[in-house]
């Protein structure tokens, strides 16, 4: 590999949850494998999207990388430092460089704090402003950057619309000049016309600042618009990862194909892919390839063995037993 070392390198990340209660009166403990051994890397200035349906574990990946959930196993190297095993006190300085944008612009701002207080907090924590005056200058610069009038800093969150709140959420992250932004469904709660504004804004900010992004979304249209590379997740595992065009123009995994063909189109002429079953539950995933009960080309081996990652090109990897069949017997 001639490429420089990636900004973030995730190896075999696992995040399991224990659900239900044990003990004599409990309903019995169950292990939910929300994230079950995924690996990927993000380079400087790159946007990688994690896409998948609800319950596939994409949100948990983001929460684990920001230590909001403890990782069960695996490693994540950020700029060469392993971050999953870092104790809270040592991880805290790194939080400035790894920032997160949340889905719900109504819930992610503390209703009792003014915009200035919300935006000043990270500055004080990371000692980026000496006094209130300096903080206010930085805050008003950042508010302008996200397309808001600096005068709004004295107001409370409830005075803003969803789109404006999401801009404030972006400002809170960008004010720290992070190296990696994890955006969890950051536009899904917004109306179409507002979503477009926010997407344009985040794309501009990303290009201008060169920040890397892990963009978590279920919306394939949004993902195509924003990403350089795309990873498709199904039940805790990455089933296909590749460059944007490789995924959207030349998908290889049957699940990716199903996802793409399921999007309702405005222009007629969508090719339908057969979906044989309902999404499985993450507490009792099917044996072998988790997707096999819904897959039209599943064979005997799919029911028993988990597929390996097959390299289709230097950048395009797909986890399917029948990959050679999909490619017409070439690979």
């Amino acid at each position, binding site marked *: 590999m001639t490429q420089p070392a990636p900004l973030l390198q995730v190896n075999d990340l696992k995040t399991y949850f224990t659900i239900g209660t044990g003990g004599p009166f409990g309903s019995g403990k169950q292990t939910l494998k929300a994230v079950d051994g995924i690996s990927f890397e993000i380079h400087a200035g790159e946007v990688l999207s994690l896409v998948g*349906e*609800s319950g596939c574990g994409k949100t948990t990946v983001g929460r684990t990388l920001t230590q909001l959930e403890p990782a069960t196993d695996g490693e994540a190297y950020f700029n060469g430092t392993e971050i999953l095993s870092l104790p809270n006190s040592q991880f805290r300085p790194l939080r400035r460089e790894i920032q997160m944008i949340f889905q719900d612009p109504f819930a992610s701002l503390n209703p009792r704090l003014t915009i200035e207080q919300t935006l000043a907090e990270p500055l004080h924590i990371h000692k980026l402003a000496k006094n209130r005056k300096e903080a206010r200058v930085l805050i008003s610069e950042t508010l302008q950057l996200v397309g808001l009038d600096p005068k709004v800093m004295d107001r409370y969150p409830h005075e803003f*619309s969803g*789109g*404006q709140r999401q801009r404030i959420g972006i400002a809170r992250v960008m004010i720290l000049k992070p190296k990696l932004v994890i955006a969890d469904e950051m536009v899904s709660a917004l*109306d*179409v*016309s*507002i*979503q*477009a*504004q926010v*997407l*344009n804004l985040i*794309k501009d900010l990303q290009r201008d600042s060169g920040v890397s992004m892990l963009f978590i979304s*279920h*919306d*394939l*249209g*949004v*993902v*195509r*618009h*924003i990403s350089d590379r795309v990873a498709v997740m199904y039940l805790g595992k990455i089933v296909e990862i590749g460059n944007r065009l490789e995924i*959207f123009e030349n998908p290889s995994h049957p699940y990716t194909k*199903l*996802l*793409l*063909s*399921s*999007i*309702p*189109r*405005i*222009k*007629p002429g*969508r090719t339908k892919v057969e*979906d044989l079953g*309902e*999404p499985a*539950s993450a507490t009792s995933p099917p044996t072998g390839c988790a997707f096999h009960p819904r897959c039209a080309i599943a064979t005997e081996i799919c029911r028993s063995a988990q597929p390996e990652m097959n390299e289709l090109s230097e950048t395009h990897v797909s986890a399917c037993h029948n990959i050679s069949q999909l490619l017409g017997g070439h690979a």
Partner: protein
Amino acid sequence: MALLEVSNLSIAVAAGGKLLPVVQGISFQVEAGKTLGIVGESGCGKSLTSLAIMGLLEGSQVRIIGGTIHFNGQNMLTLSDKKRREIMGAEMAMIFQEPMTSLNPVYRVGDQIIEAIRQHKKQTKQQARARAIELLTLVRIPDAEKRIESYPHQLSGGMRQRVMIAMALACDPKLLIADEPTTALDVTVQARILELLKELQQQTGMAIVLISHDLGVIAETCDSVAVMYRGKFVEVAPSAELFSTVAHPYTSGLLSSIPVSDHEIDRLDAIPGRVPMLGEDVIGCAFHPRCNLAQECCSLKDPEEVSLTQTHFTRCHFPIGSNL
């Protein structure tokens, strides 16, 4: 006469001693066997319209302040309570966005369907149960006989929406109102539910009013489309005509705001600004502050409805692609 005829319907919200208009004089018709799509962003009044048709606004701060709703030739707004209840749920049924909250969590799904059937039809428990199994099979729930014993929390989101549809179909309604029926569902599940609705419509010949914010969903399922902005229909046309020859700048703006998955766009053509808030007054065309084609008269006079073809209407002083 069409199955459902809504004319000049106006709805207002009582807030702080004032009546704030949320739906302003909308008219439309739905024929049996056809699907009308109402599309718009949150707060445009599309959900209130559906609740008004179902007679579900009563008792809230929202009330109908004008217009008529005729269903099957009867004026729903002047009908007696008893008569209306007979129609609701039997001839007219509704499905909602969140299938979990629309089902009662403490009863088995089968019992809820049986209850719905027996409310409108004189049937024994056994007959109703047989019908419930038939309905669950109709909406493609595997092992309907077993599933009828499940509680709502034991079903996936898609399955619950199927149960809701089965319940809505219990009395062979002539009209089904679906308010964002697939918004809470995953895209692969959504595709299957929409397909199911289309097939059921072909079998039963019912009319559907589909309310959604997703133009893709509307384009794929509806015969005709009404685009709603701030309580008014700004553009109404048959589906194919609307998407091939867009006339209203808002519709065009919505279409260019959507990031699509089937081709590359570098920058989205976003509509600037935001939807005015409830009670915020806009003089002239409600869309003019966000419109890049607006001229002086747009800020002075609210445009009347103009017809571009026999089936294509819009409310704009300067419709795109016309010489008006």
